[in-house]
């Protein structure tokens, strides 16, 4: 089943390296040289990923439905 999957992106130019996403969803984000990266771009839906995107202080994380491109988080 792939329709339900999420695509996770981090805008490295916007990220300020707060580490919030890494602490919130350690299986999904890692910091490399003070910039966050998704460990996998395609993930099964997970609350922790949504939490991270909703909490990022600079809204650098974008989570979309991989099939439809619809934004899952952050909420507008």
């Amino acid at each position, binding site marked *: 089943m792939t329709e339900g999957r999420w695509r996770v992106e981090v805008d490295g130019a916007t990220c300020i*390296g*707060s*580490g919030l996403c890494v*602490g919130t969803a350690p299986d999904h984000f890692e910091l490399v040289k003070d910039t966050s990266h998704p460990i996998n771009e395609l993930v099964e839906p997970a609350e*922790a990923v949504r939490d991270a995107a909703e909490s990022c202080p600079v809204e650098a994380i974008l989570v979309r439905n991989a099939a439809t491109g619809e934004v899952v988080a952050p909420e507008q």
Partner: protein
Amino acid sequence: MTTAGEARTYPFSEARGLELDPTYRALRDEQPVARVRLPYGGEGWLATRYADVKTVMSDPRFSRAATVGKDIPRTTPARQQGTTILSMDPPEHSRLRKLVAKAFTARQIERLRARAQQVVDELLDRMAEQGPPADLVEGLALPLPITMICEMLGVPFDDRDRFRAWSDQLLGVTAFTAEEIEQARAEFRAYLAGLIEQRRRTPSDDMLGVLVQARDEDDKLTEDELVDFGITLLVAGHETTANQIGNFVYTLMANPEQLAKLRDNLDLVPSAVEELLRFIPLGNSAAFARVAVEDVELGGVLVKAGEAVLVSTASANRDAQVFDNPDQIDLERQDNAHVAFGHGVHHCLGAQLARLELQIALKSLLTRFPTLRPAVPIEEMVFKQGRLVRGLSALPVAW
């Protein structure tokens, strides 16, 4: 020479002004994760290097929730309460943080710029009418952050004398007795409960109103969590920034060549704010520990499950592995990845707001009063004692 097994007394010394005890530097070199003995709760570990500090703050194997109600090593008599955001781990932590995170994003805070500028301009007008000399603490450092957080939360500015006193007592380490601190907490909670009841009668769209709605309509948090969140936001929202505005101006006046450099090139204000955040140790000592939930190898030692680890962000910010000439102020420092706002899930919620306030305060002050100088000899400035954070009792300035 202390062996790894022998614990040092911590805090190392009573803080003097804004000086950082030289023991931190020695430990960074020799014993980056050291045994320490705290006034309450016995022994734990203290991490002093940048990399280890960041690890402890972001690795889920180090827990805040595991400290709740326990007799863990700490500087204050009271044990950690479980209903504040700072004492939670994900996913509980995320549940609370998400409720307000939107209001504190860089984008939302940028919208408050004009209002913050207006507040600062009015305060500086008043200082100009009444001085020189003037006390910068009462004239600018306190009223700016208090006005901003009051307006965001929906707390009446006119109540400021009451919550300032409670807030001061909550952040007391040795300045107040445990009974005084408990009394202050009880009164503060009753006050917040009153504001919450008002919103139940008349809903509002301020942040307290939004939190009340999240509780009553969506059951997103408990009543205790709601009250404590209000207190946390009100206290964290002004104490830190207010003290740092004073500490920043004091540091610049104590280094007149830096003050002149900034005044002559105000484009440096953003990098100057980051550098002063890095350089000035706001906390009197490392304060709230985290507890390892499993055995973790850290900085060459084995931290066993159940053991507490304190982190010194002030020490991390002086780590020569990360910062060139760490003990020097460089207002133009680039790539300044300091940890003054913490790191990981508890990374300061108000960081963007604090930056906005600090930038506008510094820039406006130096524009308005280019001849700003201390009104008494700088060595005679008095710092508050026995608090969690450092700050001046008063900052008399002239121009």
